[in-house]
């Protein structure tokens, strides 16, 4: 066959190539289609999401919320925050009841539940892989791991300086290594198989909150010894789920733990829970789901589409999809309502802020300048632009729902007022910004950091304050701040537990950089009240002390208080018992899928 350039035809070899290619393509598609139709999971499987890659399942390394939540499905703590009750209350998890506390408030005695078993695992060599019973020595061992300097846990702060003898043990541990674990700590003792005694260095109202965090979860020493450095990729706890698949960058699969003790769904909740159907399963045995598939989504579009396609049970609303999902009255869009999707709104226990470095000679000595800048920052507009209105302007550091929050308090320096800001700036010695050098503003590299810095620059320019923006990677950003090299920067703090102290510690002078008080705020009266509040039990006096401290902060203005964000979460109609809880980490056991509604 003769071919000419003007009339090109495929010869036999081309035909053959394309046919082969076509057949291969069809085969591949058919294979893919077949494999998609093969559903191997139980009908009541939960399909959940984490929005970041996981950093391991070892509880002492569970430094971010995502890793902590996954770790908490297998590893349990002595106490937990009640799933339904609000305000948040601590309730027993691995213990029979809340601990007995000595009269001086320094000695806590915990009684462990009997018959709690670690999950079956090859690490239990002496029992042929059968999980053994959890005992008080396991708690002692686990908390010593948290203190072990060789393991460099970022969670050490929850016990640092609080337990008698533990800091001294830690200092010796760096020299003696593993052998040191046999040395007793006076303040941390197993009195018998089921009784744990903890002696505190001073009365601490926060201690019980702190030990609900995943860092304090109990692990068996056999698993740590058996898996060595790979322990972070295994989960051998007492929890309701056991690990079936673990791919920290893409997927985690949990299955029901067959040796989990008898636990039931809460029988009491907060007002409104009954009406919301959250008590319909009261008293029923948990966990409900036979399997939990957790998919890692680092991008929002695929997560959102997967939710809309019914492949995820819960989702947040990406910023770009907010206007199509939520109406002007903050109600759910009709098409989503028609699918039975529920919108659940809840304040997040956090605070965003612009920090001033008070060790900076210019900013540190000029309170009026800081107050003027605080008045010039229009938080409501910021919230509309950057959070789609899903945030409330903060009047101080303590968020709603947290002890110390005063719903009636209005921060006089956070009511946007350009004229008053100009007035204060003039009093500060810089009328119209004259004579004030540009301030160095640190932000994170990336579109969000850039957009927010542009907004901030514009706000301050309105009163004549100029900013030089410096963008950094996250490690550079932290290094700059911790080494006191920045003047102003944006930051946020998510609460670890629902107590004002967790937010006020950010201003305690002994926590100055490189500690968490990175504004390097120092005020003796604030410090005195902080130290007093640490020893006060929950109650009116402590709440009033927190509120006094907030008023001192507001006047001194070490931060421009930003927002407390609101979470907007969507849940599918088949997901039952879902209630957001900022401080409880092992909530999967309460969720229930109704397969009939999923069809």
């Amino acid at each position, binding site marked *: 066959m003769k*071919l000419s350039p003007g009339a090109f035809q495929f010869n036999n070899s081309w035909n053959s190539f394309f046919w082969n290619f076509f057949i291969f393509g069809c085969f591949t598609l058919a294979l893919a289609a077949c494999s998609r139709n093969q559903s191997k999971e139980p009908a009541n499987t939960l399909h959940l999401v984490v929005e970041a890659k996981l950093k391991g399942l070892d509880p002492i390394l569970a430094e971010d919320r995502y890793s902590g939540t996954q770790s908490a499905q297998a590893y349990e703590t002595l106490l937990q925050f009640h799933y339904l009750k609000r305000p948040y209350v601590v309730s027993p998890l691995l213990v029979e009841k809340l601990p007995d506390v000595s009269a001086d408030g320094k000695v806590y005695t915990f009684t462990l539940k009997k018959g709690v078993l670690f999950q079956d695992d090859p690490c239990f060599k002496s029992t042929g892989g059968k999980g053994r019973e959890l005992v008080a020595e396991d708690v002692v061992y686990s908390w010593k791991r948290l203190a072990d300097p060789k393991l*460099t846990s970022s969670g050490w702060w929850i016990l640092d300086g609080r337990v008698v003898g533990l800091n001294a043990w830690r200092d010796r541990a760096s020299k003696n290594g593993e052998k040191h674990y046999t040395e007793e700590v006076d303040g941390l003792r197993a009195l018998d198989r089921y009784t744990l005694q903890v002696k505190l260095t001073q009365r601490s109202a926060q201690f019980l909150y702190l030990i609900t965090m995943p860092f304090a979860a109990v692990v068996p020493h056999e698993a740590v010894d058996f898996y060595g450095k790979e322990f972070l990729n295994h989960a051998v706890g007492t929890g309701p789920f056991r690990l079936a698949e673990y791919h920290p*960058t893409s997927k985690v699969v949990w299955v029901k733990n067959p040796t989990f003790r008898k636990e039931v769904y809460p029988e009491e909740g907060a007002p409104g829970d009954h009406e919301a159907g959250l008590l319909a399963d009261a008293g029923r045995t948990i966990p409900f789901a036979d399997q939990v598939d957790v998919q890692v989504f680092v991008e929002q579009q695929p997560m959102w589409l997967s939710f809309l396609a019914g492949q995820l049970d819960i989702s947040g609303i990406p910023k770009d999809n907010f206007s199509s999902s939520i109406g002007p009255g903050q109600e759910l869009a009709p098409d989503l309502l028609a699918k039975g999707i529920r919108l659940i709104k809840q304040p997040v226990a956090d605070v965003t802020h612009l920090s001033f470095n008070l060790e900076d000679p210019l900013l540190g000595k000029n309170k009026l300048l800081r107050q003027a800048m605080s008045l010039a920052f229009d938080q409501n507009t910021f919230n509309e632009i950057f959070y789609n209105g899903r945030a409330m302007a903060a009047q101080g550091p303590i968020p709603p729902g947290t002890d110390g929050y005063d719903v009636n308090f209005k921060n006089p320096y956070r009511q946007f007022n350009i004229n008053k800001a100009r007035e204060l700036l003039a009093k500060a010695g810089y009328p119209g910004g004259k004579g004030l050098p540009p301030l160095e503003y640190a932000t994170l590299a990336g579109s969000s950091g850039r957009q927010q810095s542009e907004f901030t620059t514009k706000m301050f320019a309105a009163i004549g304050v100029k900013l030089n923006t410096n963008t950094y990677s*996250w490690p550079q950003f932290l290094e700059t701040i911790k080494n006191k090299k920045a003047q102003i920067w944006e930051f946020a703090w998510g609460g670890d537990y629902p107590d004002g102290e967790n937010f006020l510690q950010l201003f305690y002078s002994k926590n100055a950089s490189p*500690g968490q008080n990175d504004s390097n705020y120092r005020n003796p009266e604030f410090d005195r009240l902080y130290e007093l509040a640490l020893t006060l039990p929950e109650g009116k006096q402590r709440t009033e002390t927190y509120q006094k401290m907030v008023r001192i902060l507001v006047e001194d203005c070490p931060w421009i208080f930003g927002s407390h964000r609101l979470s907007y979460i969507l849940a599918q109609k088949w997901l039952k018992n879902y209630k957001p809880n900022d401080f409880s980490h092992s909530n999967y056991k309460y969720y229930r899928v109704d397969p009939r509604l999923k069809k």
Partner: protein
Amino acid sequence: MFAYIVRKLLSTIPTLLGVALIVFALFNLVGGDPTYQMLGRHANAQQIEEVRHEYGFDQSRPVQFLNYLKQIVTFDYGRSYSTRQSISQMIGDGIVPSLSLMIPAFLLTTLLSIAIGLGAAYFRGKAIDRVTVILCIFGMSLPMLGYILFGQYFFAFKLGWFPISGYETAWPDRVQYIIMPMVIFVLVSLGYDVRFYRTAILEETSQDYVRTARAKGLSEPVIFFRHVLKNSMVPILTNIVIEIPLLILGAFLLESFFGIPGLGSITIDAVNNSDFPVIKAMTTLVAFLYILGNLATDVLYTLVDPRVRLK
């Protein structure tokens, strides 16, 4: 040839040393101290010192550099600062998903682009050639993100032909997750590759031997497939082999949006987190593969062009 290969392999030593020096200098100048990130906002001065000591950040720079060189030799980079995972394990886990996506995508791109490039060159100046060039420019102009967003919304969400995102380690379940990112990779890469191969083939068609072949009365398909294509293989091979080492890095955007746990995202995460051990491992690995790729190209030249001799 053997002597040439040995000599080439020996030349990797100074190259890798240079790469190591540049990476080390860059990290120490602009990378940021990972200690604060590892410990979070609750860290105190004592803990910071402990971590710096534990990870050797308190050692002198020359000692740190020597440790780095030792790691290159042993290929034992320890554990990631950020995820605390074994780096060899991370690479081992990531390389299969990356290659599962990239090898078929690359092969398909190469086959299609050579075929289309050849066709376009064959029809040079005709409508089909012009349309091909326009389509190539169009394909190159659209960012990969555009293809991804459209593909996920239309083909996965609306039509349900493919999963929106996800990955399975088992075959054949994995296939369904690979198809759409693979097709997107092919579409994005075709524009550049077709234009490159078309130009390489056209350059060859202007050679004297082509005129001679036509004068002898050989048919155009014979000229193209037997002579032009073979003689165009040197630039084609160069382009192909240079791309091969980069395949292990995967395609970061595709991996992120499709939830494929490959090496592309591991590398980007490492850069964002100042995770120096991972950066060191990946840089050295890619540099080494790149050198090997160049060596393979040289050897392949001798196979496709008998005039080439390795000395």
